């Protein structure tokens, strides 16, 4: 019995200890991302003992011992007490901003009374007018002076252009994860070198038109790069790179309502790439405009036929629908209400039926103008009813606002044509 009691007490104590250990501490400190940082510190103020046997003095320094009118001295004082470099930057930036902030406020105060006068003159809308004002010139000079001071005290920051280039490089690197790491690095290095050569070439001509030799040099640079890339990549890798980085590669991102598989994307991108090349060739040819249009139409027909071959019948139908702007407008709205894609397809059919009917009525010369108008009004009414039935009242009402404008002009008699010109 005694053992049972002791056991029960022991279990209770365990529970209490667990609760005490894991209970939230109301006095928990707000933790910074990193513990206190220590900068490399070559020298400390001589006042501090080099081998302290005793507890450290508190406070270790007073802030006014750091302060100096000379910003570089201020910075060095911070470094001397072991302030880590990023914190030195933060502090010096704040101090510089405070100094320049006061001057900025003075400049703005001089302009304050003229605000509504500048609005009256319409100068806020004129890009070129504002920079010509006295205060704007003073402010622009102050901004430049502040940047120079920041650079003097804290060193040059990486330029925005360089940051952009770096981001582009990283983005390109990530998009090439399908390539082996070593080839990725070598390709990036080839591209950097090419860019460098191109920049030097462009700088040599400035704004002048390149000479024949200059043009030849550019072509040589391009060829050298193409050869080096060819030597680096296998033919399959080259083909994949060309496909993924071509101008037409991103089509799926802009085609809501069609989600291609990898194979479908590959087939259609190859076709789109070929179509684009054929269109470019056509544009460069010296033939009549009519002939160009006819050949352009033929290229599109060929593309559609090839796409039909590449996809299953269902998928091709979906692909075609997704490319239809009228369907896209309907699809956007049906998606918003979580309706299936088939509802958008049905509504599209209703729209096309109504528009075909309107064309027939307008073309019917047996109808008097009054009867024609009455028939168009009825067609419009029926189209509204049909769409409302397919989409539901609420979805239809939203569709009227987002893409349903065509309904309003469905009952309009087309303008009569006199000598081929619309009245």
């Amino acid at each position, binding site marked *: 019995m005694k053992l049972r009691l002791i056991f029960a007490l022991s279990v209770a104590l365990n529970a209490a200890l667990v609760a005490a250990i894991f209970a939230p501490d109301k006095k928990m400190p707000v933790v910074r991302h990193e513990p206190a940082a*220590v900068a490399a510190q070559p020298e400390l103020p001589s006042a501090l003992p080099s081998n302290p046997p005793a507890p450290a003095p*508190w406070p270790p320094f007073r802030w006014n011992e750091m302060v100096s009118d000379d910003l570089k001295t201020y910075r060095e004082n911070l470094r001397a007490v072991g302030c880590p470099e990023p914190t030195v930057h933060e502090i010096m930036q704040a101090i510089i901003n405070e100094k320049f902030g006061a001057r900025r406020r003075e400049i703005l105060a001089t302009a304050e009374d003229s605000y509504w006068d500048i609005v009256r003159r*319409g100068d806020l809308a004129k890009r070129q007018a504002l920079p010509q004002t006295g205060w*704007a010139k003073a402010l622009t000079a102050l901004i430049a002076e502040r940047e120079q001071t920041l650079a003097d005290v804290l060193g040059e920051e990486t330029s925005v252009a360089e940051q952009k280039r770096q981001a582009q490089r990283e983005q390109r690197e990530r998009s090439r994860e399908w390539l082996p790491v070593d080839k990725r690095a070598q390709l990036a290095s080839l591209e950097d070198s090419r860019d460098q050569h191109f920049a030097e070439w462009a700088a040599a001509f400035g704004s002048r038109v390149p000479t024949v030799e200059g043009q030849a040099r550019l072509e040589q640079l391009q060829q050298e790069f193409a050869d080096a890339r060819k030597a680096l990549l296998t033919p399959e890798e080259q083909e994949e790179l060309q496909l993924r980085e071509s101008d037409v590669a991103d089509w799926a991102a802009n085609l809501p309502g069609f989600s291609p598989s990898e194979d479908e994307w590959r087939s259609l991108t190859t076709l789109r790439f070929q179509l684009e090349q054929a269109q470019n060739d056509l544009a460069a040819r010296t033939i009549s405009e009519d002939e160009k249009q006819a050949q352009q139409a033929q290229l599109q027909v060929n593309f559609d036929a090839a796409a039909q071959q590449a996809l299953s019948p269902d998928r091709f139908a979906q692909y075609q629908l997704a490319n239809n702007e009228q369907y896209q407008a309907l699809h956007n709205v049906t998606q918003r209400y979580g309706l299936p894609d088939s509802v958008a397809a049905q509504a599209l059919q209703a729209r096309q039926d109504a528009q075909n009917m309107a064309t027939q009525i307008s073309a019917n010369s047996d109808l008097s103008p009054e009867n024609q108008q009455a028939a168009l009004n009825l067609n419009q009414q029926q189209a509204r009813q049909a769409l409302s039935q397919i989409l539901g009242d609420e979805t239809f009402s939203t569709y009227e606002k987002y893409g349903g404008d065509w309904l309003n002009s469905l009952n309009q008699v087309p303008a009569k044509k006199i000598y081929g010109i619309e009245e």
Partner: protein
Amino acid sequence: MKLPRLLILSVACNVALAIVFLTARPKTAPNSPSPSAIAAPVVSKKAAPVPAATPIPTTIVPWRQIESADYRQYIASLRAVDCPEWLVRQIIVADIDDLYRQRAQPEPLQFNPWQAAEERSRVARNRSARLTALRQEKLALVKSLLGCECENIADKIWSQDLSSTFTLGFLPDEKAARVLLLENQFADTAQKIREDAHFILLDEDQKKLQSLYEGFQTALAGELDPAQLEEFQLRAQQRFLIANDIHFDAVPVTSGEVREIVGFSKSVKDMAREGFDEPPSEAGLASRMDAFNAQVKSVLGAARFVDYERAQHIDFRETLDFAQRSHLPPDAAVRVYELRENTGRQAAEIRDDTNMSAEERAAALVLLRSAAMKNVASAFGDNCQDYLSSSGQWLNEIVPMQTVSASTQ
């Protein structure tokens, strides 16, 4: 298992847990750092890298006594060394900004080229929601430490375009910063509502936007005094003039009257609510514009309203611009503009006059043009030739080319 064995096990647990309890509890941050905390050799990822060959000095680093992993302690220590309060705030805000910039460093949006639009949009929305949440968390942390929702806005203030700088220039920097912060929060949240709705706004979305807008106005009212709030709202509203191509060129109007007119324009369209309200119908807009023009007329009076109406014509503004560039009085521009209007009307009448033969019409138009030229010369003097070759092209259009060639043959 027998009870004695269980008891031994349980007692062993008592001992182990007691040790954990006594040793592992975090200590309350002291007012001044303890020597053991000072001596702890810790390195931040922010700290400048220490070369391997450089031995870390054994001396006490004064700054290490200040800096702490606990923000409250860090603030207290900075205050204890008499760091100015504004600088304490700047240091802490910059530090927290840096922390959250690293945390918000988004995993890059990298898609396979076959990933569909919907999937990309979903991923982008999730990321944007995560960033918004992090920002809110950051502001809440700053508020809990410093009592204000401050952000490091120096870069924003210094890189603002001139127009925005000027527009907020009437506010003290701290208030301007708060307004910028509120505007950003408001715009981000509104954008998120629109994105979540795929830009197809249903009633529920409109309600969300409406409530967001009201919250924004309340927050602004909490930050600014009534006069500042009114000025801020009017300055935001002046975009109405730009959006509707409204001009006051050569209208004798005071800047106070312009401010008043901008105030009226809210009844046509509240620019702060742009994108929130459904746009009015064409008829509705026309009727609001009529009411607005009536208010403008009541401010300016009938005579100046004529000037105001004239200022809305691009032809007049072009003429005035020429006059100003040529250092001519505005009155000369008014005369030439009125001449242009009258001449245009007369030319139309001549062209439509079926009682005249073609030759008579041509002759009348030539006469009209030479009279107009004479008047332009009288208004612009020596600058007349410059005018004819620039804004004065309308004079050549009085007489159609075929008429000119027919009459000269």
